[in-house]
């Protein structure tokens, strides 16, 4: 991630990053945002989520578009563990509306979750229903706890 030359403090308060695949390993001139990743980042922004994309740090970043039925999302970085269920829920809804019940096409993404000072990484290439099963691991109790914590934080802020 150092390759993106992210300024100090630029990620303060940011929950997610939508970055090109291999942003943590490949040289910056080889990185390309995916068109699906760009669309998903716009969708997250329209939902009021706090995120940054590679373009925010490098306005020369190009977009790579593949015209197949598959969806390439690049790498989704979850910087705030509490926000993970929100991202997963939004992602699955967005993918469902994109596929519209069609069984054509796979999903390709990397999911990186921050825990303390470390990142756990998962790479996925496969059909939408498999992704749904995998991400069901973000169990509902944790999702609701995360959401409650988020809303109680907001309530505290608004009371101040």
């Amino acid at each position: 991630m150092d390759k993106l030359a992210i300024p100090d403090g630029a990620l303060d308060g940011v929950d997610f990053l939508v970055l090109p695949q291999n942003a943590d390993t490949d040289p910056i001139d080889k990185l390309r945002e995916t068109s699906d990743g760009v669309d998903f980042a716009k969708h997250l922004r329209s939902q009021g989520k706090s995120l940054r994309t590679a373009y925010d740090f490098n306005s020369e970043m190009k977009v790579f578009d593949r015209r197949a039925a598959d969806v390439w999302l690049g790498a989704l970085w979850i910087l705030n563990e509490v926000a993970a269920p929100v991202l997963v829920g939004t992602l699955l809804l967005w993918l469902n509306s994109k596929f519209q019940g069609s069984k054509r096409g796979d999903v390709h993404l990397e999911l990186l979750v921050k825990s303390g000072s470390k990142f756990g990484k998962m790479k996925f290439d496969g059909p939408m229903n498999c992704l749904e099963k995998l991400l069901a691991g973000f169990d509902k109790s944790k999702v609701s706890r995360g959401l409650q914590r988020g809303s109680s934080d907001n309530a505290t802020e608004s009371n101040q």
Partner: protein
Amino acid sequence: MSDGDHLDDPGPSISQRAEDDAIRWASLVEGEDFASAAKLAVDKICDTVREVASSAPEQREELYWVRVLFNGLRDVANLLACIHRDDWIRTPYAVERAWTLAHDSKERLSSLTLTQEFKTFCLSPVSGTIAAVNERYGAGLYTSWEVEIGALICTICGIDSRSCVHIPGEWYEGVLCRQRVDDIKPVAIAIVDEPRDMRCRAWPWNSDAKNARWHDMPIFLNFDLEGPDDGGQVLDLTSIFPSVRTTFRPRNTNMRYDVMAYRKLSRRELVDTVRECIAQHKLERSMYSRATFHTHIGSKYWDRRSASIGPADDS
């Protein structure tokens, strides 16, 4: 008329007028007058384009969807005209056109909120066409290109869409937000079985099996839900089906052969075609006194002689 109704009555609403025209379209389709149905849709699109120019911003979104609807209905009427003939599935032009029209109309009509009954009425010939093509020619292979894009310009604010707040597909004061691609560089073309655009299909008549080569495969098609400003066209069946008749009467016989092609045939082509058809269908002279053959000579694709027997024509 109540006291409240006066001469400045604005008349039927946009959606009411669209509904009335859609009902007229459906009755023309039911009467199998597909050309008139397509013409009605083309005229309605032209009217809508004119109306947009003088409309208030808040009406433009509704007019846009009316335009999408009638583009979809024009596609369905043209599709029905194309598949109405029994030989469409054997005719390359017709298959290609039907396939494109089926996917165009499916994309347009699926983007609209229509009653289930009307949707089924419109989309059943579409799904039937797709199934018929897949049954005869297989699920197909398609092109899928990979491109590198320098910028995605937002049509609302003119800056890179990645850094603005506008959402593609949303309306902002009567203007539809889109992403305009800038600085585009093709990287690769892949042959896939699950493409994003089903219109980019390879057809058997575009293959040169001997040299394992394909030609005339679309890589990218520019498709807009709202279609062209001139409303598009009513399908010209003579450009799809062989429709030029050349008659051949062998000397010293009472035989008559009519050969239907895309252009008038030379005597040499005519004789060769008839000879090939007779051999291909193992026809004995005692079986017939006149016959009509169809050939793809003159079409863009099948310059090699590939003829099939048609029904005897007594006209």
